[in-house]
């Protein structure tokens, strides 16, 4: 469904992604791991067309969405992204945040969009917070609203960019539980995370990124418990040591 081929991205001459190729099939959950600066977030941002890429191709259902001649706003509608720092719109209530895209981009009526937004908020366990503004919500609640917002227009592909990294430890659980639920409900997800235990639980495929390349990829079991590459081993050792 998603196919990334030879993706290259540099900021001010400094290479961030150095020829990344990745295939994601329907209903697959792909987890990207790697240290900070390894290119996980940039890869996700490139897939969502939030960054101009320097070389390579991004194919979604066989269509090259990285072609500058296509309508990027249109291509993005097939994808939903959740950010590390939530990025909710602070001047809108939780309900308005969730109902925004269906209403103005996908042409739902105001009532339909709001009804659907209420359903989604109920699903992420926040029915009672529909009229609250983001600054009145905890980090975990904000991130759950952000997930509901990304789901509101039924994107085919969900991109999650370290969505628990900005949360207090005791709030991580509620967000991961929600993502776990999504992962088992046959959604296609590409996510970057530092939560190794969680990765093992939900991932179909784990990719280890280092220095802008995918060094190793395979089943969660294989990459996380029996890594073949030295650098993967080093990373995982440091990671378990740091815990």
């Amino acid at each position: 469904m998603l196919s990334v081929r030879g993706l290259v991205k540099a900021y001010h001459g400094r290479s961030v992604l150095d020829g990344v190729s990745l295939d994601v099939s329907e209903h697959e959950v792909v987890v990207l791991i790697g240290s900070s600066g390894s290119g996980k977030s940039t890869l996700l941002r490139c897939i969502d067309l939030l960054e101009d890429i320097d070389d390579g191709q991004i194919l979604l259902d066989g269509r090259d969405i990285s072609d500058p001649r296509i309508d990027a706003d249109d291509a993005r509608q097939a994808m939903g992204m959740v950010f590390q720092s939530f990025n909710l719109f602070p001047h809108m209530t939780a309900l308005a945040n969730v109902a925004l895209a269906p209403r103005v981009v996908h042409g739902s009526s105001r009532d339909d969009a709001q009804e659907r937004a209420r359903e989604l908020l109920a699903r992420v366990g926040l029915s009672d917070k529909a009229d609250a503004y983001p600054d009145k919500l905890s980090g975990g609640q904000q991130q759950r609203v952000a997930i509901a917002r990304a789901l509101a227009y039924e994107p085919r592909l969900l991109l999650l960019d370290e969505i628990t990294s900005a949360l207090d430890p005791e709030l991580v659980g509620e967000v991961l539980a929600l993502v776990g639920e999504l992962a088992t409900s046959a959604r296609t997800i590409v996510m970057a995370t530092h939560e190794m235990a969680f990765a093992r639980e939900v991932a179909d495929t784990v990719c280890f990124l280092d220095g802008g390349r995918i060094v190793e990829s395979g089943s969660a079991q294989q990459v996380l418990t029996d890594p073949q590459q030295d650098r993967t081993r080093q990373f995982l050792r440091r990671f378990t040591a740091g815990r």
Partner: protein
Amino acid sequence: MTTAAIDRVAFRQARARRSTLIALGSTVVFAAVLLLAVTSSPGWPRVRDSFFNLRVGWQSLPALLDGLWLNVRVLVVCQVLILIVGLGLAAVRTLRGPVWFPLRALATGYVDLFRGLPLLICLYLVGFGLPGLRLSGIPNNPVLLGGLALVLIYSAYVAEVLRAGIESVHPSQLAAAKSLGLNYRRTMRLVVLPQAVRRVTPALLNDFVALQKDCGLISVLGAVDAVRAAQIQSATTYNFTPYVVAGLLFVALAVPSARLADFAAKRAAERQGAM
């Protein structure tokens, strides 16, 4: 309550009472010294007669209030026009795409010109220059021309304030809007502008407080506003008191707006702190 808490409350209350008394005492002393210094100066009797003559002040009040009413009307109309023009300019400067280059360049030039031009010169050029062209349709009315000059100058300021607000919205907000599939125009209208306007409201109100007194400058074109009325009154009474009264009227007009600006600034700060 524990005895420690009761003791603490009592101590805080005593300290607060003492602070109030000290403030009161120092204010009285300060005012007395100031009053004494002014009234004991050698020229005070003459200054009192020519600047603080109650009888002249009272007699000139109706004419001054008439003039002030003109200032208030000019102020309200100008404020609305300035907001519209300023918003338009700020929006034009954020347009993207090569087609809009001439408009963008024009808006940039406009802002540079009218932010730099002294208001008084602008008033003279518009007030005496425009009618001098003798084009049909250009009014000769000093109030309209003065208002036009105010709008020209202040819309440039307001446009810059709004643009600063637009640029202060964090790029992550744009990324979030984009990733939802919103195009550039919708992102601007639904996500960026509402946040920008909220953020710059205190600065805008501040500009409007400044506009309030600058409305008095349309008198140089001959419009009979409060300043002009004071000039007329003082010429007929050989006394400066009407100027003082007109000044006090402007101050009285500005105080509510200034308090409103303070309030808005405080609220914005609280909001940002909460976010």
